[in-house]
């Protein structure tokens, strides 16, 4: 068995004195682990930093084996954000959450968005909104996507400002007014087809994180008996606190 693919390093753990078990989110082969001989060497340690984009060649005798990776650096995303507190926390959040994906199942659309977010970390100030969108895409890939196309009560596509915590569907201002205190705020930048609008405000980003936090907790962390990644909580507190 052998394949070559592009991927994002999600984690690397020391194995023995010289090797590393690396977890890579690849485009065609999904989240895939493999052993890197010499992964703890001076040459490979910078390459295997979390968040880096690599070219990975995987070999194993049988497909179900752990296998061995040969990796080559394509983009050193980690090094670019090491000094930026918020962006590094964003990168850590992204890689921690990406580990929720099932192993060895390709998620190409999410992978492409992940690359965009990683590039955005070192390029500007708009990455928090992108990260929220990425979390929505992740929820979708995990099977818990939200339906924001139309109002769950009236079917209208106008003035959608709430999300029902029960169904994960959008609710319009008029239909949601009597239950406003029970509904979750839906920031406009998350609405379908609203990607090119004005830059989301800090309030919008905070509402977006609150929304994803709620559905991660309800559908992912609680059922799996997991706690949310601390780094995500610190990031949200930093960005929205």
């Amino acid at each position: 068995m052998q394949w070559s693919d592009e991927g994002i390093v999600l984690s690397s753990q020391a194995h023995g004195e010289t090797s590393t078990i690396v977890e890579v989110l690849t485009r065609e082969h999904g989240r895939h682990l493999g052993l890197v001989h010499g992964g703890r060497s001076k040459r490979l340690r910078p390459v295997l930093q979390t968040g880096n984009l690599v070219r990975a060649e995987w070999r194993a005798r049988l497909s179900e084996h752990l296998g061995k990776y040969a990796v080559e650096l394509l983009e050193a995303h980690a090094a670019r954000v090491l000094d930026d507190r918020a962006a590094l926390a964003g990168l850590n959040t992204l890689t921690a959450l990406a580990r929720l994906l099932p192993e060895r199942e390709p998620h190409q659309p999410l992978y492409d968005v992940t690359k965009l977010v990683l590039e955005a970390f070192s390029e500007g100030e708009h990455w928090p909104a992108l990260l929220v969108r990425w979390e929505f895409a992740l929820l979708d890939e995990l099977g818990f996507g939200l339906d924001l196309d139309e109002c769950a009560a009236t079917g209208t596509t106008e003035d959608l400002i709430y999300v029902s915590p029960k169904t994960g569907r959008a609710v319009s201002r008029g239909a949601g007014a009597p239950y406003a205190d029970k509904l979750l705020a839906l920031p406009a930048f998350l609405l379908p087809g609203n990607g090119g609008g004005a830059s989301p405000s800090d309030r919008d980003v905070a509402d977006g994180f609150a929304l994803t936090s709620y559905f991660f907790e309800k559908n992912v962390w609680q059922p799996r008996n997991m706690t949310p990644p601390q780094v995500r909580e610190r990031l949200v507190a930093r960005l929205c606190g």
Partner: protein
Amino acid sequence: MARKVAGPEIEQLIQLLARLPGLGPRSARRAALHLINKKDQLLAPLAAAMTAARDKIVICETCGNVDTSIECTICADPRRDVSLICVVEEVADLWALERAGVIKGRYHVLGGTLSPLDGVGPEELSIAGLIARARAPEVKEILLALNATVEGQSTAHYLMDQLETCEVTVSQLAHGVPVGGELDYLDEGTLAAAIKARKTL
């Protein structure tokens, strides 16, 4: 199964030596043979030194360094600058900085870095002790000498947040081109960090 070549005591010596970093079964066998050949000059003093170390080694209550007294040699040294605390991940890092002889202050050993994957959170590290030391009036600067890795820098950023309430200057090691490093051979990450941290001459 490999045939045994010596008695159980020697086999055990080989097996234990093979568990040391840098030694495999073959090199452990060579080391054991060397010790046996130099029984009086090497094996006996080594055994005595190891027994003494086992009995006396303690962790410094102040900084987390290993030594043979509750207050380590560095913390007890009155010539050290009390206004500077250099924070390191492990004792090995402290020893590396001491070899270079560039830190005149004292140290604080965290005991690792934040790593959700390994279940290491702030509670598992010696952070509360650092904050308490940073609040002492004589302490003016905390130097974060953590590795230039994602885990190391994430921990540094966490410490910066925690130290915000202390009246100290927080600094950290520079990242960039190592001494003797040729640009042609440096990885892209190091080059990017070096460019980002460039200084005006």
